């Protein structure tokens, strides 16, 4: 249990909240151009009050939506990626990582934490799209794996909020194997009969869809999210014609049988609480 000791040392309770969105005064909806004050926008959980467009938000914002009194303990907050292949494209991966860390204030594309949702202890993993497109490399895989270990250790339900373009190319096959690693851990969670809620948000594609995101006891999604395996551009190139209206939206994926329900962000906490009660009682 070497890692567990390290993990315990890595736990911290955040004292300051960092918001991903710049602290501008106004927010203009990307979908309908409706303008509200940033404060109001935050009060409506970053969902447009006029058209219900769900803005892409960060792990800290989801934690704020979910955890009681925004209290939680982060697990392995400092883990950062190695560069196993000394990968270089137009930029060195090592430099790309450093730049992303500086720019976003994040360490990688997932944050994991334990806390209470409606007074029930849960473990939540939440991806950050801002960090190299929410791509899954070794850190994402390892942090999810350890969060699952933590959930097993504490017999806590596990909630994973996906928001990712897929596997991280700069870690090549190491990234690919994170699909296997996270799925392997989920079999252990399932063995213990611990509930796993997979929440898919905009966007969830590629290797993330083809592994943990589709493996929930229940798969749920926010409205209007892009969810798919192949990206829409690739599908369009394959079929050589325009894609049908609403293709690869949450609603489309629900209709085809791969989601259990779609939930508005304002109801998310309550629905999760309700589901966990129904499982438990």
């Amino acid at each position, binding site marked *: 249990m070497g890692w567990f000791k*390290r993990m315990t040392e*890595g736990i911290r309770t955040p004292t300051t909240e960092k918001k991903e969105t710049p602290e501008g005064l106004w927010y203009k909806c990307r979908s309908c151009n409706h303008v509200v004050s940033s404060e109001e926008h935050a009060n409506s959980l970053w969902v447009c009050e006029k058209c219900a467009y769900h803005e892409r938000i960060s792990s800290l914002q989801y934690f704020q939506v979910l955890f009681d009194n925004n209290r939680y303990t982060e697990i*392995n*907050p*400092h*883990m*950062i*990626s*190695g*560069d*196993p*292949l000394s990968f270089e*494209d*137009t930029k060195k991966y090592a430099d790309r990582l450093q730049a992303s860390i500086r720019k976003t204030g994040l*360490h990688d594309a997932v944050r994991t934490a334990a806390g209470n949702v409606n007074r029930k202890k849960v473990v939540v993993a939440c991806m950050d799209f801002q960090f190299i497109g929410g791509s899954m*490399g*070794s850190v994402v*895989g*390892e942090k999810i*794996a350890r969060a699952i270990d933590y959930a097993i250790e504490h017999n806590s339900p596990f909630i994973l909020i996906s928001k990712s373009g897929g*596997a*991280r*190319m*700069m*870690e*090549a*096959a*190491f*990234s*690919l*194997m*994170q*699909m*296997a*690693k996270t*799925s*392997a*851990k989920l*079999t*252990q969670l399932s063995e213990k009969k611990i509930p796993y809620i997979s929440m898919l948000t905009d966007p969830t594609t*590629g*290797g993330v*869809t*083809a*592994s943990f*995101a*589709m*493996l929930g006891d229940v798969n749920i999604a926010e409205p209007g999210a892009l969810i*798919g*395996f*192949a990206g829409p551009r*690739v*599908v369009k190139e*394959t*079929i050589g014609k325009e*894609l049908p209206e609403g*293709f*690869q939206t949450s609603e489309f994926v629900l209709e*085809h049988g*791969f989601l259990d329900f779609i939930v508005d962000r304002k109801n998310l906490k309550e629905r999760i609480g309700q589901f966990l009660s129904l499982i438990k009682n």
Partner: protein
Amino acid sequence: MAVYLEFEKPIQELQEQLENQKQVKEKSKLKSDDSIKELEQRLIETKKEIYAGLSPWQKVQVSRHPERPYTLAYINAITGGDFIELHGDRGVRDDKAMVGGFGSIDGKTFMFVGQQKGINTKMRQYRNFGMANPEGYRKALRLFRLAEKFNKPIVCFIDTPGAFPGLEAEERGQGEAIARNIYEMFNLKVPVIAIVIGEGASGGALGIGVADKVLMMEYTWYSVISPESCSSILWRSWDYKEIAADALKLTSDNMLGNGLIDGIIKEPIGGAHSNHVEAFESVKAEIIKQYDSLKRLKPEVRVNNRIEKYSSMGVFVEGD
């Protein structure tokens, strides 16, 4: 007509000279075949030399060589024809890009599953270029469960440029199908051996690739993306495929060096396409060897080892 890759030109020239000499000998009824022997020797040396110095991109080209043996060729040869192909996912249809069935090696029954590429233009279409739809992965899962039910070990042959990125594939849940297979393969109690015999592209490969022993044939590749797509995404141009092939560390020796596979199966001199029979023999011998060691373990130990193996993959820094 044999197909030669660009860097195989010296091989082609020698091969043609050799054919000519043989014809000359035939016609003139000459006794001496010294020049033929010499040419044959030179051909072997040239093949060895060229294949010893292949770049990662050239290995990718070899992995796609149209005369390389494909899954069904391996299965038929290895089982000596004692193979019954099984069809269908029991839901949508029979996916021709994914094949499988029971077959025997030296009297022992295995379940074989693999992506299948076509051997000519018409068959390539029929096999959808080895790109399975969700029903292909669900057919594979059905066959895995059948193997489990009758306690038969599983051998998977991986050879795919990727899972099919089509509209119907999305409608029928390509992501879910692959995810389900990866997940369920961790629950299999029977021994599972996976062998990359050509292309091992991303989730499409991994969807039948979770195994106790994952082996790559010498001149194959396995990664998260093809070098061409990697080039187009990261360099925003198709022109960097050689550099991408290098950067991805997708060759068998790199994959073994990085601890992401368990072994390499040597190919015949000049690659599997230049000597099918020898390639079949090597693969068969390797399957028997791996199975003999895996069958000694208790099922729980195999499952546990499988989970542990994949759980330890990844490179990261703990941080302060």
